[in-house]
């Protein structure tokens, strides 16, 4: 170890220190304080150690030290050699016994299972037919790269479920900001329940746009897609506006559910939340929803509105 051999060297260095302080080259070390008398008491002690332990007095060093200036001090001398100034201790069996004890491996937290649940939107509003309730929640459990995702979204009006789906996805981080997800989606409403295979991405697009894009394939050639993009606009660090757009797409007409191929619905919302703490934030928002393309025509034919604007109040929370 070094402290043992450090004795002679630091002794030398400190001896020189006083001398150097007097002839100090201030241009190099303005910060250096003049050596004080107190520094010298070290020498006797270090000297003893020198005599006792020093196995490699480097006499060749000494001629080089007197002209030393501050740049040289402690840095450049002597010319590097293959031999260490302090010899490397010769190993004993005791050293070897102490070096590699049998151990069971270090328990690190870098594979710790983490679980997360978030209600991004959980809100209610006054609908014509009664009280509306909407939820959009996601949860994951897993590790940095591999995760199991659960997502659900749905709407209830006046106690009856208008739409509800749930997805179970395996997610894998494939790029710096993107997780690839694959799994199944099951729609409980509207109409008869139906299932889809799902493939998509969850991630953070440039400018910190939070993106979820998923494509679905059902039986008898049905296809669909859903895109959700949201952003956080900080009015203050606790009062946060969240614009969100959700777009739905269908590959094949679905008369049973009054939907046609193409873009079916778009929802645009602006929610203003206040983060009392990070985990719990009540919000109010305004949401505009509209049927698109042929789906809009179908709704018109049925005598339904094709758009709807609602004022919502809700809670955003995670744990």
């Amino acid at each position, binding site marked *: 170890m070094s402290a043992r051999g450090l004795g002679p060297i630091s002794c030398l260095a400190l001896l020189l220190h006083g001398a150097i302080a007097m002839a100090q080259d201030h241009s190099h070390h303005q910060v250096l304080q003049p050596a004080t008398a*107190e520094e010298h008491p*070290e020498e006797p002690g270090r000297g003893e150690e020198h005599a006792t332990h020093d196995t490699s007095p480097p006499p060749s060093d000494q001629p080089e030290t007197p002209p030393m200036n501050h740049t040289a001090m402690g840095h450049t001398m002597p010319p590097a050699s293959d031999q*260490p100034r302090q010899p*490397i201790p010769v190993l004993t069996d005791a050293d070897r016994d102490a070096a590699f004890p049998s151990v069971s491996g270090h328990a690190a937290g*870098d594979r710790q299972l983490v679980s*997360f649940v978030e209600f991004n939107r959980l809100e209610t509003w006054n609908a014509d037919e009664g009280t509306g309730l909407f939820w959009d929640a996601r949860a994951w459990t897993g590790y940095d790269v591999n995760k199991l995702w659960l997502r659900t979204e749905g709407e209830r009006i006046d106690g009856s479920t208008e739409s509800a789906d749930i997805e179970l996805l395996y997610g894998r981080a494939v790029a*710096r900001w993107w997780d690839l997800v694959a799994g199944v989606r099951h729609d409980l409403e509207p109409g008869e329940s139906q299932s889809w295979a799902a493939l998509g991405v969850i991630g*953070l697009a440039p400018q910190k746009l939070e993106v979820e894009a998923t494509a679905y394939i059902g039986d008898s050639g049905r296809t669909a897609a859903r895109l959700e993009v949201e952003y956080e606009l900080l009015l203050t660090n606790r009062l946060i506006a969240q614009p969100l757009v959700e777009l739905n797409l269908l590959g094949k007409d679905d008369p049973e559910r009054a939907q046609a191929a193409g873009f079916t619905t778009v929802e645009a919302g602006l929610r203003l939340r206040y983060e009392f703490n990070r985990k719990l934030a009540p919000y109010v928002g305004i949401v505009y929803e509209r049927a698109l393309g042929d789906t809009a025509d179908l709704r018109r034919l049925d005598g339904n509105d094709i758009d709807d604007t609602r004022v919502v109040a809700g809670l955003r929370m995670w744990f």
Partner: protein
Amino acid sequence: MFRDSRFGRGGVPPLSRRRFVQGLAAGGVLAGTSWPRSLWALKSDSEQQVLAGTNFDLVIGETAVNFTGRTRPAITVNGSLPAPVLRWREGTTVELRVRNAIPESSSRGHETSIHWHGILLPANMDGVPGVSFNGIGRGETYRYRFEVRQSGTYWYHSHSAFQEQAGLYGALIIDPAGAEPFHYDRDYVVLLSDWADLDPDALFARLKKMSDHDNFYRRTVSDFARDVQRSGWSATVADRLMWGEMRMTPTDLSDLNANTYTYLMNGTTASGNWTGLFRSGEKVRLRFINGSAMTYFDVRIPGLKMTVVAADGQPVHPVSVDEFRIAVAETYDVLVEPSGQDAYTIFAQDMGRTGYVSGTLGARAGLRAPVPLVDPRPILTMADMGHGDAHSAHDADTRPDASQSDAEHADHDMSTMRGMNHGGGAMDSMSTMSDGADAMQSHPASETDNPLVDMQVMAPASRLDDPGIGLRDNGRRVLTYKDLHAAFEDPDGRDPARDIELHLTGHMERFAWSFNGIKFTDAEPLKLNYGERLRIVLVNDTMMTHPIHLHGMWSDLEDDEGRFHVRKHTIDMPPGTRRSYRVRADALGRWAYHCHLLYHMEAGMMRVVRVEE
């Protein structure tokens, strides 16, 4: 200039109303054993427990503490938080019997350990479970026994998951075999640390779920409007677009701050006002130790110059400063000569400027001097992160403090970021970089397309002469690594025969941390040959600052010319830096090597180093 405490403090810190920043005046360990102070006791009137000699019995248990108004369990040594000051003497052989008395009901696990930070010893005495030994099971006693081969200020702490952040840390003072290299009349340990009421496991999980939980300083719409007014629409938009492109936040200075932590000085909150006594004209040695889990402190004593005489326990040429930044796990010994005032404030604010802890040097107990305001919060620039040329950070030095001129920042960012059409790291057009940039930094293949690496530095520099983010041009003389000159020659003297380059990597959002993009569990040990002299080159590919600690051997930091500069056990690596140090592999065995931000270590920024014959 001093004030009696009943008149309150000089300044009104912006966070002073918050109970958990200052903590309770009478906080701390609720029930502890009182240990007699020995002959070697520090000349202190504080309540620090000091154990000295060569034989020690340390009992690790769970103790109720209260720093914030809430009673919480802490892991303690002999019922004390911080753990007792241990005082050894160079050249003696110490024996420490450490018993695990953590109750079964504890959430902190059944195993414990003590690691002697910065101490040279046989590998099986180093105290890292699974690396140096198997830990100390409940009810068991482990006997540490080794020769003390160095002197200076060090510390010790648990290396078992999350026990250090729960309170198991203490000062370790080793008196030299001979006389001290400097004279002083009084000697105090000033151990800084961070306390969270939240259970460390829950805190780690929270970081994984929402890493920016504590960043309540993100730029808002009104900041945007102000910046537009000051520096124009296009510069401001371009600045926001750049950060948006990287998906990062320039106010992200530390993962955790005073929104989570209460800062402690010798186990006392600012309200508790730890006090060290002096008589006018005396020379006082203050042994600063940063025993925090995650907090860098900037330390100063308004009205006093501090003469730094040792870093990480090793003597340096004395350097007189007003302020220094102390990375997690570092130690600095300073000498001060208070006179002319009856009281001085020891002020330690966190690097993110969210809180502080303070204590007092007083002519008698109960005095207080004015407590400064926490400094304005700095804002990271692209240059800070090594995305501009090496000189850019220094350009910043010539300007007013960052946070006082956000508008200029926008301009500054622009100037250093011109031509950067990157996707969060990869720079496509180096040719447009301003002059002086080093050759483009290359990166290990394991970082490429690695979803756990969110950034790569393009033009890192050593920045040994940089006081650091938030400390540039603050009107005070701030210590830099360049100021630290070892007071002794390179004890080895050989030139390194080979280089090992390691990149510090991570992903802020996923809170994953690693070396070279490979987490601890997935990484092979780093192999060194017994007796060799090698150079470790670290490159920081993250926007955070990391204190890197190698167990068992010294880290001999090199200057910009590649020469031995200062001997340390923990090397601070700010964002945008590339620093090198020499290692003499004279300690056979398995050693831990890791970031000392404990949640980064836990998340994977750790390796095992094997020194083999």
